C-alpha cells in the first residue's frame, strides 16, 4: 500500500505577491508544476533531511563567508534553500538583453565622464554628482581602457513586482560578489536532488570561469601573446575569500596577494619559486583605495606599490578599471534611464524602481513628506546597511532618518516599497513564501556575456525584504529553462 504523504504545498499561500513557483506563467513547459509534484513525492521530512545534509556539505567544503563581529571572525555558510527558482526562456531573454543594455550604458557613461563629459555639458546629470563623488577618480581622466570597457564584471540586482515585472534595484560595478554560489548551488543541487532535476532542460552555469578568463585575456595589454592573468585577493581574512579561490580555480590562474606581486620599471611581476614572472591582467578583488599605497591609501598593506603607474603605462590591465564606483552610486542610479536613452538611443529594457533624489529639492521634500511610506537608503553604502524601511520603522527610527536626511540630503535617496516577489522556501513551519531578488552576472571584454540565471538571494525571515548575506539572507539554485519545450519525464 502506498503511503499517503500530505502535500507540502497544501498550506502554501503567497499572498498578494508574485510567486516564482506557483503564479501561472506561460512557457515554463510544466517545469514549476513538475518541481512541486516532485517535492510532494519526496515529502517534507525527507526534504529536510536532504537539505540538512546539503548544508553540512557546504560547511565541510568550506564554501563559507566570514562575518566579523567585534573581535570574532566566524565562518558561516550562505544558507541554501533547496527549492529552486525557475526563470523561463522568455523571461531570461528579457533579463539578458536588459543587463547587456545596462552594462553598455555604464561603460559609455564612464568613458564619457573621464573624457568629453558630454552628459554633464548637456545638462542631463548634475556635474557635482559626478565630479564631487568620492568614487570619481581624477587619475582616470583621458586614460584609455581597451574596448572602452571599464566594468568587466557587473552584478545587477533585480527584483520583481506584484505583476511580475522585473525592476533593477541597483548596479554593482565595482567588485560584485556571489557568483561562486551560483555555480556551487548548482553542483550541490545535482548531488543532493538529482530526482528534482531529472529531465529538466536547464542552461548550464559551468562556463563562467572560461568566459571570465577569455575576457581577462582580451583586455591584456596589446601585443602580449599568451597573457598571464592573476586574481588579486586581500587574502584569507576577507569575507569573500572562498569566492576568490573559486574564481582563480575556475579560470586556472594563480590567486595572488599584494605581497606576491611587485613592480619594477613600470612592469608587474609575481614572485615564484623560480624567480619573477610577468603579469598582464589582474582581476582584482580589492577596492580602488587599497590597490596602490603610493597613490591611494598609504597605510594599505594589501596592494602593490607602483601598480597604478604600471597600469597607466599600459603594461598591465585591471578588472574592473579604477573609478567605476561613480557609476554604481545610488544617486547616479536614479539617472540610469536617461543615460540609456542618451548613449544608446534606446528605451530601457529593464525599468528602474522610481527613485527620489534627496539632493534635489523636490526629491527631499517628497521624501520628508512620505517618510513613513518610503525606503530611505544612503547612496554610498552596500550590504543593506543604513536603510530605513518607512512602513516598518518605529516613530523613533523615522525621526532618526529625518534628522539624517536634513543633516546631509545629498547622501540619501528614497524609493517606494517594492513588493518583492516570493518563492516557496523550506522553513521550520513547512514550505512558506519568502521574498527574493536576482543578481545576474555580466562579463565584458570585447563583448558582453551574461551567466544564465544568477544568484537568487532569499530573505529567510518571514516578511523580511533584506536579502543580504550579512543580514540573514540565503540563496537558491536559479534555473533558466533552455527552451520553451515541455519538461522530460523523470527517470
Amino acid at each position, binding site marked *: 500500500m502506498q503511503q499517503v504523504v500530505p502535500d507540502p504545498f497544501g498550506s502554501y499561500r503567497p499572498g498578494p505577491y508574485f510567486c516564482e513557483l506557483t503564479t501561472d506563467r506561460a512557457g515554463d513547459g510544466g517545469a514549476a508544476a513538475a518541481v512541486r509534484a516532485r517535492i510532494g513525492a519526496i515529502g517534507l521530512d525527507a526534504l529536510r533531511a536532504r537539505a540538512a545534509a546539503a548544508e553540512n556539505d557546504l560547511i*565541510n*567544503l*568550506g564554501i563559507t563567508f566570514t562575518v566579523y563581529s567585534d573581535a570574532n571572525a566566524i565562518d558561516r555558510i550562505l544558507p541554501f534553500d533547496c527549492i529552486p527558482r525557475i526563470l523561463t526562456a522568455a523571461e531570461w531573454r528579457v533579463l539578458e538583453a536588459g543587463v547587456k543594455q545596462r552594462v553598455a550604458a555604464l561603460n559609455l557613461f564612464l568613458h564619457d565622464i573621464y573624457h568629453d563629459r558630454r552628459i554633464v555639458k548637456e545638462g542631463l546629470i548634475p556635474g557635482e554628482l559626478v565630479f564631487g563623488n568620492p568614487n570619481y577618480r581624477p587619475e582616470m581622466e583621458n586614460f584609455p581602457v581597451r574596448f572602452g570597457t571599464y566594468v568587466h564584471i557587473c552584478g545587477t540586482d533585480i527584483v520583481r513586482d506584484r505583476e511580475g515585472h522585473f525592476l533593477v534595484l541597483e548596479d554593482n560595478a565595482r567588485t560584485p560578489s556571489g557568483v561562486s554560489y551560483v555555480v556551487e548551488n548548482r553542483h550541490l543541487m545535482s548531488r543532493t536532488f538529482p530526482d528534482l532535476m531529472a529531465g529538466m532542460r536547464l542552461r548550464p552555469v559551468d562556463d563562467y570561469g572560461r568566459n571570465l578568463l577569455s575576457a581577462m585575456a582580451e583586455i591584456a595589454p596589446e601585443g602580449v601573446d*599568451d597573457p598571464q592573468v592573476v586574481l588579486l585577493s586581500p*587574502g*584569507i581574512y576577507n569575507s569573500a*575569500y*572562498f569566492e576568490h*579561490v573559486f574564481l*582563480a*580555480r575556475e579560470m586556472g590562474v*594563480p*590567486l*595572488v*596577494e599584494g*605581497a*606576491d606581486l611587485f613592480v619594477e620599471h613600470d612592469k608587474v611581476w*609575481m*614572485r*615564484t*619559486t*623560480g*624567480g*619573477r*614572472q610577468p603579469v598582464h591582467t589582474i582581476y582584482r578583488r580589492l577596492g580602488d583605495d587599497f590597490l596602490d599605497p603610493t597613490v591611494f591609501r598609504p597605510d594599505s598593506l594589501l596592494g602593490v606599490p607602483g601598480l597604478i603607474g604600471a597600469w597607466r603605462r599600459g603594461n598591465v590591465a585591471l578588472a574592473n578599471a579604477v573609478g567605476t564606483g561613480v557609476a554604481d552610486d545610488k544617486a547616479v542610479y536614479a539617472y540610469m534611464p536617461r543615460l540609456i536613452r542618451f548613449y544608446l538611443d534606446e528605451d530601457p529594457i529593464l525599468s528602474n524602481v522610481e527613485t527620489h533624489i534627496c539632493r534635489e529639492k523636490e526629491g527631499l521634500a517628497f521624501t520628508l513628506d512620505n517618510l513613513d511610506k518610503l525606503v530611505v537608503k544612503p547612496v554610498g553604502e552596500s550590504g543593506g546597511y543604513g536603510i530605513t524601511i518607512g512602513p516598518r520603522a518605529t516613530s523613533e527610527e523615522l525621526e532618526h532618518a529625518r534628522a539624517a536626511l536634513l543633516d546631509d540630503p545629498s547622501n540619501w535617496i528614497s524609493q517606494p516599497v517594492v513588493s518583492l516577489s516570493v518563492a516557496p522556501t523550506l522553513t521550520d513551519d513547512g514550505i512558506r513564501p519568502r521574498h527574493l531578488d536576482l543578481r545576474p552576472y555580466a562579463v565584458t571584454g570585447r563583448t558582453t556575456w551574461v551567466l544564465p540565471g544568477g544568484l537568487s538571494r532569499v530573505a529567510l525571515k518571514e516578511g523580511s525584504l533584506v536579502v543580504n548575506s550579512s543580514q540573514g539572507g540565503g540563496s537558491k539554485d536559479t534555473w533558466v529553462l533552455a527552451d520553451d519545450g515541455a519538461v522530460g519525464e523523470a527517470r
Partner: protein
Amino acid sequence: MGRDLTLLARYAEGLFWMARYVERVENMARLVDVTQTFESPGREAESWLALIRINADEKGFAKRGQAPTADAVKRFYLLDRDNPTSVPASLELARTNARTLRPLISTEMWSQLNAFHRDMTNIDESALHGDRLSRLCARLKEGVQTHTGITEGTFFRDQGWLFYQLGRQIERADQTTRLLDIRYHLLVPAGGGEALRVAELTQWGGVLRAAAGYHAFRRVAPAGFTRSDVVSFLLTDPHFPRSVALCVEKIEWFLGRLRSRWGLRGTVAALERVEELRGGLMGRPVDAIMADGLHHFLDGVQRDLILLAGEIGTAFFRDWRPLAEGAQTQGQTQG
C-alpha cells in the same frame, strides 16, 4: 597545455609548512601514546615531564603556572590552543596554511583537513582520561594518515608536491629524533641486573611501537637485540619510513627533482646541509655515537634540520618577504 607550471613562492612555503604541521600532529599523538605506556605507577608526573623536556617546552609550560601533573601536561599538549606546540595549535596552523592553498590543493584535501580540525579542536577534558586518551591518539594518527592518503591520491605532482614532501620529511626526521630522545629522559626502574635489562628493553620496544616500527624492527634485528640495535634502526635503517636516514635520503631526492625537473637553481646550499646530515648519521657506528652521548647527538641532528629548512626558505620562499625576518625555526608560523 602551454603554460609553464610556475609556483608562487608563498604557495611553496604554505605547502612546506602545512605538511610539517600535519606531520607534527601525528608525532605528538605518538609521543603522548608512548608516554602513557611508560607511566610508572605513583610517578606519573615524572613521565609526563619528560614530554615537556623533549619538546624543549619547559619555559612555555612554566608560564602556565600550573603544577606539572600528568593532567596538566596532557592539557598542555592536547587542549591548550595557546601553546604553539600543542595539537590544536598545529591543526590551526595546518588549516590556515591549507586555506591559503585552497586554489592549489584538491577539494578533498581541504574538506578532510577542515573537518579534522573542527573535530579535534572541539574535544574536551573528558577525552584525556582513562582509556579514552589512547583512543584519542589513535584518532589523531588516523586523521593524519587519512590526510596523507588523500594527498597521495589527489594532489597534483608538480613542484608543489616536492615542497610538501620536503616539509613532511624534515618534520618526520625531527620527530623521530625526539621520540628517541624520550628514552634519555625516562626513568630507569629501580633495581639492576637482569630486571633492569628487561625493563629497559620493554621501554625500547615501546619507543619502536610508538614509531610504528616494532614489526619491521623484528624482521631485521637479531633475536637478542640490544638498545643500540634499536637506536641504529631508528637512525639509519635504509627501509623504515620513519628512520632519520631514509627521511634524509628522500629530502635529497626531492631537492634533486626540484633542480632537474623544475629547473630551480639554489638547491646547492640545502644539498650541502643534507651531505652534512648524512655524514653525521652514517659516518660513525651507533655505538660510538651512544658512547659520546645520544642526547647530545640528537640535539645536533635537530639543529642541522633547522638549518636545512632555513636554506630551503632562503632559496625559494625568500623572495616574497624580507630576508630580515631570519632563518626558519622550528616553531615558526606562516602567514
